[in-house]
């Protein structure tokens, strides 16, 4: 079996989703951890130091390329799978089957699309202006903490972020365990562990992200 055959098969495509998904799950931990520095409540000193390291060190910047590649693969493969899967039914049922699975498990494509739209907004809010300021190389950055303060003073922005993170939560509630099933975790106990971890992760990480705009909006931070 050639690699081409592997990655063009339905299971191979799922493997791509799984590997990139796990990669993105790991990224979210870093992202949430770093952003949590805002709650140091030191006027952004700690947060900006972290952001400066991520934006001005060559290693994270190279990893950033990897992140985009992973993200891109996850999005493209996900959309293609969704389109292909939707085409397999032919005629639709008059009464659809909804009892056997969770709504968010069936709506990964939809949730993913919402997250994608949110991501575009999010990147153009922070990442893009910052990198543009740097001339897309290592260089002087904008004050991201101040930028957050500014962005999250608008109610509609906060709502968009909360909605985006909720979608992320539900996406992860299915995606986390599914990723591990796809790479072959079939032992009952492991599956139980991963499903607990998955639900915990799907609640904690998005909740942390949601609390960031809310903290700024309600001026819990100075």
């Amino acid at each position, binding site marked *: *079996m*050639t*690699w081409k*055959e*592997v990655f063009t*098969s*339905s*299971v*191979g*495509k*799922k*493997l791509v989703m799984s590997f990139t998904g796990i990669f993105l799950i790991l990224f979210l931990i870093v992202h949430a951890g770093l952003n949590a520095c805002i709650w140091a409540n030191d006027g952004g000193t700690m947060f900006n130091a972290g952001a400066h390291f991520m934006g001005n060190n060559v290693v994270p910047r190279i990893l950033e390329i990897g992140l985009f590649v992973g993200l891109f693969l996850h999005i493209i493969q996900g959309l293609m*799978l969704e389109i*292909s*899967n*939707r*085409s*397999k*039914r*032919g*005629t*639709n*049922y*008059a*009464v*659809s*089957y*909804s*009892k*056997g*699975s*969770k709504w968010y*498990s*069936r709506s*990964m494509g939809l949730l993913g699309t919402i997250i994608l739209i949110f991501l575009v907004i999010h990147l153009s809010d922070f990442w893009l202006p910052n990198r543009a300021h740097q001339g897309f190389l290592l260089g002087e950055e904008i004050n991201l903490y101040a930028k957050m303060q500014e962005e999250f003073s608008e109610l509609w922005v906060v709502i968009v972020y909360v909605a985006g993170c909720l979608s992320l939560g539900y996406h992860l509630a*299915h995606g986390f*365990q*599914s990723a591990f*099933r*796809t*790479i*072959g*975790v*079939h*032992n*009952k106990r492991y*599956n139980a562990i991963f499903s607990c971890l998955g639900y915990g992760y799907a609640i904690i990480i998005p909740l942390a992200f949601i609390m960031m705009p809310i903290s700024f909006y309600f001026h819990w931070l100075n």
Partner: protein
Amino acid sequence: MEHKNINLTLKVWRQQSTVSKGEFVTYQVKNISQEMSFLEMFDVLNEQLIQEDKEPIAFDHDCREGICGMCSMYIDGKPHGPWQANTTCQLHMRAFNDGDTITVEPWRAQAFPVLKDLVVDRTSFDRIIQAGGYVSVNTGNAVDGNSLPINKNDADASFAAAMCIGCGACVAACKNSSAMLFLSAKVSHLALLPQGDPERQSRVVNMVAQMDKEGFGACTNTGACEATCPKEISLSNIARLNQEYLLASFTSAE
């Protein structure tokens, strides 16, 4: 045990052949004993249609004891109807109340084209088995049955997967019309036994390739298949298939 007779409205998919356009037709059935099975209720309806000079409804059925896997109705939004771990032929009218309207559709999947009314073509399942769902052993080549002890837990797990009746409810229930539960039941059945070991790589690779070729969707682990499976085949079989596939792709000789 108290049994009532009930009246029902049935909305049934009628389609003359694969190429023709289908539609729902509404029928009334009266005085149906709750002791009847769902298919016996259809027998009554068909007799009624014959007497009215109409064509009876074609539906697949054979053993009527829940093991052959032939019956295949999608009843009120669930393959094999409302009961858990059950086939259509074992569904009894006790599951319904007087005055209910029941919608009956065929399995819907591109890989299962409708042949007539509620009858679909499931030969794609046979072709998936042909791609590798067997142990290559010719008659007469076998050693003594007890020459190879098999761990009881593995044998039991293998049996649990081998219970699949190939009805296709998993495909009908899956939002992607994926055949992964069917496929993984066979892969697990053989992967858990030493007899299946020599061909484990080619089996999983070829069976997946055939499933894709037949036009089934990809699995997204929603679990709808497991929830509707009349034999309660576990979703973890799919994970085991994934593992087999992953190992095969990394260790492929080509």
